[in-house]
């Protein structure tokens, strides 16, 4: 497939068939640009059921025609198709014979004297007159444009001439010049899924009819359906086979996205992202989605294996917008504002302040806090402090009661809402200019985003700039292109955010004065803080309300240069070369001033007071932390493209190329103590990094203060040879094959292991093009079958014994290292073998269309975490030795239910995916390991994300949970945990949904379009965390659910499953309960993902090229759950301990000038 064809193909229209559901009969609908006449005739044959016979020689390959007929008779379609071709047709015995037309002299003469003038008016279905609609005399290229009132006049016509009327965004139609043209109504083109007929693998663009692999392409309109700064996030809910992972267990090696389930265990699980043909190493947020024209998801081996060892998790190919040749300057401005409310802090259950006080009272009486109290400096809650004072006789019982009553009324969430959170406001705007002349194209854009986050300290802004140009020279034989992109982003946030230590923490008193609270990570007692150092120390109190400003800034700067050339060596052969240079500077700068607790605490900790003498190991001043990360990535690709058509039926396309990538990251971290921002001095020289400085409060504790900078280099080099051949016969049969060999600097593997060949084979059969094919109601049917190998690597493992220098020194000032990898001489690449069978179809005169894909992925040689006995010195070892299998079905179905003035269109995505581990060398040793840690040593025969639990029975009459051991009721939690017998566990299912997908309903009426996306995830499970287990209380643990429902008196066991409070704490009982079946819930739910309402607007006074419509829209997301299986109000996308995103609403404007 040639580069130039791509460009022209971007304006190819889809087979959008417009027909009346009630009208039966042989009505033909065919809208195609530049389609070979042969194919047009074939389509008419298929749709009409007539055999159409013609002589190949008469229908030359070069005769590409435009056609736009909808619901017309076969004869009318034939007339349109043969118009201006000197061909004629006869219908004999139900067969159509195409033959050359004998042109009479009279006809020839009249051709010169056409005198008919057609006048007409063009409007849309609402009666708006269309300005600058194109009226073209079919077969001649002669064009006129409509005026401001939609009127046109075309002279020198014959009454039988056909006029084609087109307007971007509307369906092109044909009319007879002699007909009444005073009211030509154009109907709106509706964009549905899978509407783009060209798919891009990043190496080449393939017309969909010749593709054998499983691709999903998302066009610009769908990409812009949602708002947000991240292009990958925008794919959610509109992409078949792609799942944005949410709510998965944090222990597992999770990726942000997964395509067709999981095919690795511990190696890189991320999907490869390709931007404009080159793997993208930069930060995804640096891509402005407004600059993106389309995204293609490569799912099976034929689609993805061309990307070699990084394709095992699927590939996302992102294509940027470009200018079009021969188009005038077009400007587009888009701007969006999104607002959303404060998060719902009540979503996370917590023990109420009064319950928590009772719990503390109980624990206090049992001596739970005595150890802590005996350390003068160690924090206890205000309540424990009061109880301790009461016990020591320092306050009266009345006084104590009154103070405790006060605490009961406080709820920290009120203060959090008041001081820490605010509504979120995101603003996005982008302006782009594009166009092109005879020999060049250009596209330029500038974007600006500004996000005000929910947390008062957090914000984000981004500037993106793009310029792309291409020039043709040497009469079109050479095309040179160049892109420059620049982006700069700033994230401001607070490094040490306030985490409440108690449910009744208070940030401010009634007058709004800041109050001191316990710092959850430092935990100093207020009484100690108030007196320590007798005023010679810095203020050691922690007042979160005084620290509500960002102290950390992450700055990212990226520039990317790309240069490409495309040289046509001969008619069939082209050479293309691309080079890309990307540089990304990421700087993380934390400046922690003396006004913040963080700095005061560190300085105080290393202060020594001797009489009146105060000596500080860390000098007074700001602490500055700077991390500078520099990524330099270069990529080069040289590729030969071959394309040949032999005697009209044999079509060969091939590419072969070499590609090399070199990405290097350099990181430099530095901390400066006593930093003075005024004159940039620092006090690091006064610190002896080998010395052990005593801690002020913890006796005998001391610490070294490291001042050295740390440097790292990461190098990722790959080189690859690849090729891809496709052969099509008669556009009916297609065979494809690809081969790729990758080499990379994988560490410690011998040269053979460093490279791996990966391949794919595919075939496609367009059944509907067969002469025997008679199914008129299925006008298009194509079968695809592919097989191939993708790869994956894990650069963290090594074939040799390798050690890492951690940059620390031991107490004797010697630097030391630690072993990170035991030797593994048999290390090799992971491989994913993929089968895919797909069917592309169109039904009921293309009123419905879509695809069905069935796949199976067998991943072998996966790197697994093997549990080793401790005597080896290593408890876990990562090496090849695991296999998984995943299977799935993907169905995409687009239908036009009503396609009139009022339109109703639906897109349905159904995904089914299951996976299981088929081989794993090392087994878990206890049931407890299976239940808690199945990700590390998964059980054969179950999914990687398998969820197991201990089957639980009801509580006993002391409120203790009960399980089963060898079939008997048991409270021997230790034995239940330690036994190794998976048969005694309950297997629920996968934590990743088996079924998921979306239903998008789009309605339009007049200029309004309403689109509603409903997403669903079915058949999966999650485990409730943070439930009161009877023993999991203690400092800071108040965010527990079920505390009030706990067993409290005999008889409660009939109504509750939450255990009684146990003291002393029983960790085994707690572990049993937390992993018991009582806490496993179904994740199944259906959610209203988003709603978008668009109004299209026409700018009647705009310039001549203003063919695009402008629009304003309202968009709402996070609308909530329509149905969920769990009855606990938990949103399974977030889990029980993450606050879901609040409802967000956007308003936006897209202006096309």
């Amino acid at each position: 497939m040639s580069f130039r064809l791509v460009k022209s193909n971007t304006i190819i229209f889809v087979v959008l068939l417009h027909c009346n559901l009630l009208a039966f009969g042989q009505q033909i609908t065919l809208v195609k640009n530049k389609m070979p006449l042969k194919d047009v005739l074939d389509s008419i044959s298929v749709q009409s059921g007539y055999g159409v016979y013609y002589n190949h020689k008469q229908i030359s390959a070069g005769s590409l025609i435009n056609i736009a007929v909808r619901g017309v008779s076969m004869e009318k379609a034939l007339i349109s198709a043969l118009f201006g071709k000197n061909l004629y047709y006869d219908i004999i015995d139900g067969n159509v014979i195409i033959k050359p037309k004998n042109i009479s002299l009279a006809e020839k003469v009249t051709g010169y004297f056409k005198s008919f003038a057609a006048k007409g008016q063009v409007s849309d279905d609402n009666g708006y007159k269309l300005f600058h609609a194109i009226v073209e005399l079919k077969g001649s290229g002669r064009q006129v444009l409509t005026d401001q009132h939609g009127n046109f006049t075309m002279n020198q016509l014959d009454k039988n001439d056909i006029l084609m009327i087109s307007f971007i965004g509307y369906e092109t139609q044909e009319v007879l010049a002699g007909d009444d043209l005073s009211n030509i109504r154009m109907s709106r083109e509706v964009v549905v899924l899978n509407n783009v007929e060209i798919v891009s693998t990043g190496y080449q663009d393939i017309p969909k009819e010749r593709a054998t692999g499983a691709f999903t392409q998302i066009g610009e309109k769908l990409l812009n359906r949602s708002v947000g700064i991240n292009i990958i996030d925008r794919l959610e809910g509109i992409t078949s086979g792609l799942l944005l992972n949410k709510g998965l267990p944090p222990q597992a090696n999770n990726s942000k996205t997964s395509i067709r389930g999981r095919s690795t265990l511990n190696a890189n699980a991320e999907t490869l992202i390709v931007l404009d043909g080159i793997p993208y190493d930069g930060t995804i947020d640096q891509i402005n989605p407004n600059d993106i024209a389309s995204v293609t998801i490569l799912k099976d081996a034929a689609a993805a294996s061309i990307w070699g060892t990084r394709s095992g998790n699927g590939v996302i190919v992102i294509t940027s917008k470009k200018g079009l040749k021969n188009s005038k300057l077009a400007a587009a401005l888009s701007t969006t504002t999104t607002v959303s409310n404060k998060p719902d802090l009540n979503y996370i259950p917590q023990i109420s302040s009064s319950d928590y006080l009772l719990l503390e009272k109980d624990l206090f009486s049992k001596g739970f806090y005595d150890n802590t109290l005996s350390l003068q400096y160690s924090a206890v809650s205000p309540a424990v402090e009061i109880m301790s004072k009461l016990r020591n006789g320092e306050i009266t019982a009345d006084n104590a009661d009154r103070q405790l009553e006060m605490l009961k009324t406080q709820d920290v969430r009120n203060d959090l809402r008041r001081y820490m959170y605010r509504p979120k406001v995101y603003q996005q705007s982008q302006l782009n200019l594009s166009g092109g002349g005879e020999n060049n194209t250009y596209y330029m854009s500038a974007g600006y985003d500004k996000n005000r986050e929910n947390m008062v300290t957090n914000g984000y802004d981004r500037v993106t700039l793009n310029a792309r140009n291409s020039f043709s020279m040497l009469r079109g034989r050479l095309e040179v292109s160049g892109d420059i992109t620049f982006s700069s982003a700033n994230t401001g946030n607070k490094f040490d955010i306030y985490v409440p230590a108690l449910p009744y923490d208070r940030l401010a008193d009634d007058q709004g004065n800041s109050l001191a609270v316990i710092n959850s990570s430092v935990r100093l007692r207020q009484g100690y803080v108030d007196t320590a150092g007798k005023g010679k120390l810095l203020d050691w109190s922690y007042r979160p309300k005084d620290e509500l400003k960002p102290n950390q800034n992450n700055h990212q700067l990226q520039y990317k240069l790309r240069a490409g050339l495309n040289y046509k060596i001969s008619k069939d052969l082209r050479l293309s070369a691309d080079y890309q240079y990307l540089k990304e500077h990421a700087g993380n700068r934390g400046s922690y001033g003396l006004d913040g607790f963080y700095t005061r605490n560190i300085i105080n900790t290393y202060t020594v007071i001797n009489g009146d003498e105060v000596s500080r190991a860390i000098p007074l001043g700001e602490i500055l932390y700077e991390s500078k990360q520099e990524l330099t990535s270069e990529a080069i690709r040289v590729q030969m493209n071959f394309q040949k058509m032999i005697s009209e039926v044999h079509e060969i396309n091939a590419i072969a190329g070499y590609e090399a990538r070199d990405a290097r990251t350099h990181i430099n971290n530095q901390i400066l103590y006593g930093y003075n921002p005024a004159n940039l001095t620092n006090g690091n020289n006064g610190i002896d990094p080998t010395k052990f400085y005593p801690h002020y409060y913890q006796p005998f504790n001391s610490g070294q203060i490291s001042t050295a900078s740390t440097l790292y280099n990461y190098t990722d080099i790959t080189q690859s040879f690849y090729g891809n051949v496709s052969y099509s016969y008669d556009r009916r049969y297609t065979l494809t094959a690809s081969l790729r060999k990758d080499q990379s600097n994988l560490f410690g593997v011998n040269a053979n292991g460093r490279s791996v060949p990966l391949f794919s084979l595919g075939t496609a059969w367009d059944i509907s093009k067969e002469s025997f094919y008679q199914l008129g109601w299925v006008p298009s049917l194509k079968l695809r079958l592919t097989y191939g190998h993708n790869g994956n690597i894990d650069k963290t493992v090594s074939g040799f014994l390798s050690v890492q220098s951690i940059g620390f020194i031991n107490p004797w000032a010697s630097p030391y290292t630690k072993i990170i990898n035991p030797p593994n001489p048999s290390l090799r690449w992971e491989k994913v073998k993929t089968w895919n069978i797909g069917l592309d179809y169109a039904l009921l005169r293309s009123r419905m269309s879509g695809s069905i894909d069935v796949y199976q992925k067998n991943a072998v040689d996966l790197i697994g975490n093997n549990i080793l006995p401790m005597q080896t010195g290593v408890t876990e070892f990562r090496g090849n030795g695991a296999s998984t299998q995943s299977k799935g079905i993907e169905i995409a179905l687009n239908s036009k239910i009503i396609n009139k003035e009022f339109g109703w269109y639906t897109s349905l995505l159904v995904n089914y995916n299951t996976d299981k581990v088929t081989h794993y060398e090392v087994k878990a040793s206890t049931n407890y390991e299976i239940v808690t840690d199945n990700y590390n040593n998964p059980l054969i025969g179950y999914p990687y994300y398998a969820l197991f639990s201990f089957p639980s029975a009801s509580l006993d009459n002391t409120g203790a949970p009960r399980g089963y051991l060898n079939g008997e009721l048991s409270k021997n939690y230790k034995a239940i945990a330690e036994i190794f017998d998976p048969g005694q566990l309950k297997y629920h299912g996968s934590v990743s949904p088996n079924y998921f997908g979306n239903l998008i309903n789009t309605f339009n009426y007049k200029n309004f379009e309403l689109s509603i996306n409903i997403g669903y995830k079915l058949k999966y499970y999650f485990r409730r965390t943070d439930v009161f287990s009877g023993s999991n209380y203690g400092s800071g643990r108040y965010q527990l659910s079920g505390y009030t429902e706990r067993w409290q008196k005999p008889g409660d066991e009939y109504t509750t499953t939450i255990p009684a409070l146990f003291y002393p704490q029983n960790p085994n009982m707690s572990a049993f309960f937390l992993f018991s079946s009582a806490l496993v819930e179904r994740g199944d739910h259906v959610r209203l993902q988003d709603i978008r309402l668009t109004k299209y607007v026409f700018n009647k006074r705009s310039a001549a090229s203003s063919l695009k419509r402008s629009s304003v829209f309202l968009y709402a997301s996070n609308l909530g759950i329509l149905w969920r299986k769990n009855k606990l109000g938990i949103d399974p996308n977030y889990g029980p301990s993450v606050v879901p995103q609040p409802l967000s609403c956007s308003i936006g404007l897209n202006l096309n000038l």
Partner: protein
Amino acid sequence: MKKLIMLLFVACLFGCSKELELKPDSTIIVPETIQDFEQLLDNAEVLNTTPGLAQLSADEYFIPSLQAWNSLSNLTQRNAYIWNKDIFQGESKIWDWAAPYAGIFYCNSVLDILELQDIGNNPAKKNIRGWALFARAYSYYSLVSIFAKTYDPATANSDLGLPLKLSSDIKKIVQRSTLQETYDSIISDVLTAADLLKAEVTTDKRNRPSKVAAYALLARVYLSMRIYDQAEIYADKALLLCPELLDYNTLTVLPGRSSFTYNSPETIYFTQQAAKYIETTFSSSVSYGVDSSLIALYGADDLRMPIYFRKNAIGNYGLRPINNVAPNPFTGLATDELYLIKAECLARRKQKEEALLYLNKLLEKRVKTGAFTPVMALDAEDALQIILTERRKSLVWRSVRWTDLKRLNLEGRNIKLERNMGGHIYELQPNSPLYVLPIPNDEVTLSGITQNDR
């Protein structure tokens, strides 16, 4: 044109194949050089820390109340205190077993790479080899004193020792050797190390072993095996090279600060107990107290009292750092232990006067200047009793008490341990099988080695 393409291809090929040798991560090293080995063996977190179970089970501390016992955060701590039959109760990856084996793996890795290199007469490499052998033996000795019976020549060939991992191959799983084999391996490693290591203690890097350390370790090991003549020989050899004692009168006592540095002159080889069971061994809180009968043994002028201990909030004694800056108990080799070994061995062969001479040399440095009066004894057995008591007082919290209890009971000294837990009395009978701690269950399950019968 085609030539140009070919040229391009070749250029790329050539240009990149060398680059493929580059390390993906600059911090990752394949150890090869002396410096690489040193950095690996200088990892004091792995190689200079010792298990805590011996300390947890011995009689140097008590938990003041049932309440305090109940509030302990981990089960192993609670169970080890009362000598439960199963002390781990489901807790896994028990550090006391895993950490010494991690150290052994480090040493084996170094030894295996050195095996492939020609050490020849390279003194630096010889020293590294000695270091790795020494550290491996040290770790095995830590393990054997907790997880195996006391050495008894009569039964050592049938008693269970440790799984002896002598190579870094993680695929090779070994079963338990006999106790004799375990001790043989330890001793032979240390003897080889003694030949390879440089003689003197490196005064500013006491985490690294020397010939002195090897001899001192041999003295400690032979003493625990009750092979007193060998213990004495190696104590002599070590003392010959390093007889230095620290006069405690020169130390300052500041509240909350250690009186020592990481390079205390008495330290021959530094190790410390890992910060695993802090609540019952060295926390500043009131969760434990130093055994009061032990405290009672120190005289009024004994400087060890203020330097080793401090009073806590409820009047019990807690631990201060000894030969250490961090509060973790010092468990390494030091000259005071050598004096005590030498004295004990002399007393055992009835050399009363000479034994007391060694003892007094040490005690002189432990008592306030001017207040010292040499210790006298009635006879050799009396001297031995005095020396054993001084051993408790001097080597407090060094994890040697547990092995002492085991060997002394084996020779019939009949020391019975008792814990009073809210009125409930737990007892540990002399020579009880409970003196041998259980091997963590996950090890037994995964490698199939024999569990201790207790």
